[in-house]
């Protein structure tokens, strides 16, 4: 057991739990009628800095901190080129959904994406249906994040898999359940600070290990010149690079509910503007440094590491003295926990708000509602824990489809719903059916047709369905148009 890694990790865990307790205190002081707003949206109180941190850290996860750097280790800078597309994506999410989304969410008193969608496209498939889809995909994705994190933690620290898993899952679930959205965004900010410290330290260490960037490049070329090419020596076509980057990691982020939900919780437009710039800066640092480091790790560990997912943790341990290594290692776990906490809350909101209360029409007292919200957070967290402990055989399959499936489902209804008045419910239902179905079929049977990533095809299919079906069916109701475009007469 490597205590130099375990101790900083435990301190970090405790810090997150304390933030959870703080969130719980705020909730306890909140009037019952405003519980839902506080639990799911921190009362729409977010300023620029916290908004920037929570949006960025919720989007950036093990994928950016472990998975794609692992690919970069094996295949070089092509992955930096691909993943760099996510740098402007947080700006895109806030900018495209923007204030209209925020205004409408306030109008509808909505804290969930399905609720906004179902107000625009009244149909159970749009409300409860999309919420259920969201939960299935995100639950698998959350399990996969924890599985990955726990495996790596076991490798690095010697702590057995199920113990590491318990520590991570229980911490995340506890602070999310007791403290709600406020705890989530504040821990996201704490985790963002840890991630920021981690990436800067890693970058400086990896460069000084080679005594400079130019010597580092020379070493990479000596190991394998293909590593510094932008396409792994033409192994990846530019169609693939463009769509895996700018569609899958760019445009598709508009369809990820745990990111989108941040766009309805900022306190004013100035907060939104500030966050748009700050989040881009953060995305740049996280993305550039982690993807650069993945490839550069070849100069620290040599090219022969057999499990590339361990490359980043091994590099950190190799570069830093013991206790500092423990602190820097917290960064990938911070990335995981910040994403999972946001996903967890968004799933619970979907189940309780969109399915139980709205679709099934169950009435609840204020305190009953508060209890249900919290209990469901624990229950869902437990389910994720069990799935991570004993991964069901279909888990990897679902994860693979999770992000693409979500994007294929939500991007088109959301963007068209907000900005194209002629988009109607039939079009939306068609899009929600066509998007994920296309994605599933393409990804399973004809991956990357013409080199273009599957998600580009599915989003296009959803768009065609939306436009085509809307135009041949009847226009949306007066009520919907008034609600989403009109101003109320003075």
């Amino acid at each position, binding site marked *: 057991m490597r205590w130099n890694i375990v101790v900083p990790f435990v301190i970090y865990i405790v810090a997150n739990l304390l933030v959870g307790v703080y969130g719980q205190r705020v909730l306890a002081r909140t009037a019952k*009628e*405003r519980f*839902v*707003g506080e639990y799911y949206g921190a009362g729409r109180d977010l300023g620029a800095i916290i908004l920037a941190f929570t949006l960025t850290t919720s989007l950036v996860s093990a994928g950016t901190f472990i998975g794609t750097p692992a690919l970069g280790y094996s295949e070089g*800078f092509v992955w930096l*080129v691909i993943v*760099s*597309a996510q*740098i*402007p994506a947080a*700006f*895109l999410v806030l*900018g*495209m*959904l*923007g*204030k*209209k989304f925020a*205004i409408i969410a*306030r*109008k*509808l*008193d909505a804290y969930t994406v399905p609720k906004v969608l179902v107000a625009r496209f009244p149909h159970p498939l749009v409300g409860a249906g999309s919420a259920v889809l969201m939960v299935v995909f995100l639950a698998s994705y959350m399990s996969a994040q924890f599985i990955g994190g726990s495996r790596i933690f076991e490798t690095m620290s010697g702590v057995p898999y199920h113990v590491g898993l318990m520590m991570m899952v229980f911490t995340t679930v506890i602070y999310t359940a007791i403290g709600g959205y406020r705890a989530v965004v504040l821990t996201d900010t704490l985790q963002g600070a840890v991630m920021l410290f981690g990436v800067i330290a890693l970058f400086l260490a990896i460069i000084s290990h080679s005594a*400079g*960037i*130019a*010597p*580092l*490049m020379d070493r990479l070329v000596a190991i394998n*010149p293909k590593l*510094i*090419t*932008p*396409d792994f020596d033409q192994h990846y076509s530019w169609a693939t*690079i*463009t769509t895996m980057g*700018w569609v899958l990691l760019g445009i598709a982020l508009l369809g990820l509910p745990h990111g989108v939900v941040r766009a309805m919780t900022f306190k004013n*437009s*100035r907060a939104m*503007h500030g966050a*748009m710039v700050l989040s*881009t800066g953060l995305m*740049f640092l996280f993305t*550039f440094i982690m993807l650069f480091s993945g490839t550069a790790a070849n100069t620290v560990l040599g090219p022969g590491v057999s499990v590339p997912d361990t490359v980043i943790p091994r590099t950190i341990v190799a570069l830093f003295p013991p206790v500092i290594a423990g602190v820097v290692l917290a960064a990938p776990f911070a990335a995981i926990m910040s994403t999972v906490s946001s996903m967890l809350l968004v799933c619970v909101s979907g189940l309780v*708000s969109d399915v139980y209360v709205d679709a099934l029409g169950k009435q609840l*007292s204020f305190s009953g*509602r508060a209890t249900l919200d919290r209990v469901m957070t624990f229950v869902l967290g437990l389910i994720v824990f069990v799935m991570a402990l004993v991964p069901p055989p279909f888990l990897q399959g679902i994860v693979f489809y999770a992000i693409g499936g979500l994007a294929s489902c939500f991007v088109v209804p959301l963007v068209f719903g907000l*900005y*194209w*008045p*002629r988009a109607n419910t039939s079009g939306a239902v068609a899009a929600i059916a066509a998007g994920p179905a296309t994605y599933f079929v393409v990804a399973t049977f004809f991956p990357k047709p013409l080199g273009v990533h599957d998600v580009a095809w599915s989003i296009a299919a959803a768009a065609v369905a939306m436009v085509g079906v809307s135009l041949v069916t009847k226009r949306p109701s*007066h009520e919907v*148009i*008034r609600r*989403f*475009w*009109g*101003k*109320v007469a*003075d």
Partner: protein
Amino acid sequence: MANLLKDYQVEEDSRYAWCFTEAKIALFLFVVCGAVSLTVTYAMTAGRQPREYDFVFGLPAYLFWGIVVTDLGFVVATALALRLWYRDMPLDPADPADHAPPEDA
């Protein structure tokens, strides 16, 4: 688009009209960032072997110009766009009567 609103005699909230413009600006900047980044990266490496690459501050030139400079330039462009075109606006519903009752009233 205007037809539908006219037919229904819905007067558009002026905020929303501007929001649509802002959304288009955001998408435009994003697409331009992508186009510049990919074009520069491709142009600087097409037909060249890694040993023939130019380097700037130690980094391969395409990384420096196509990613670092382009993305930092994007940050500057967004700050400018926000300053020049984006507007502060109140986010609350225009009319309290238009506000939905709290979820579990």
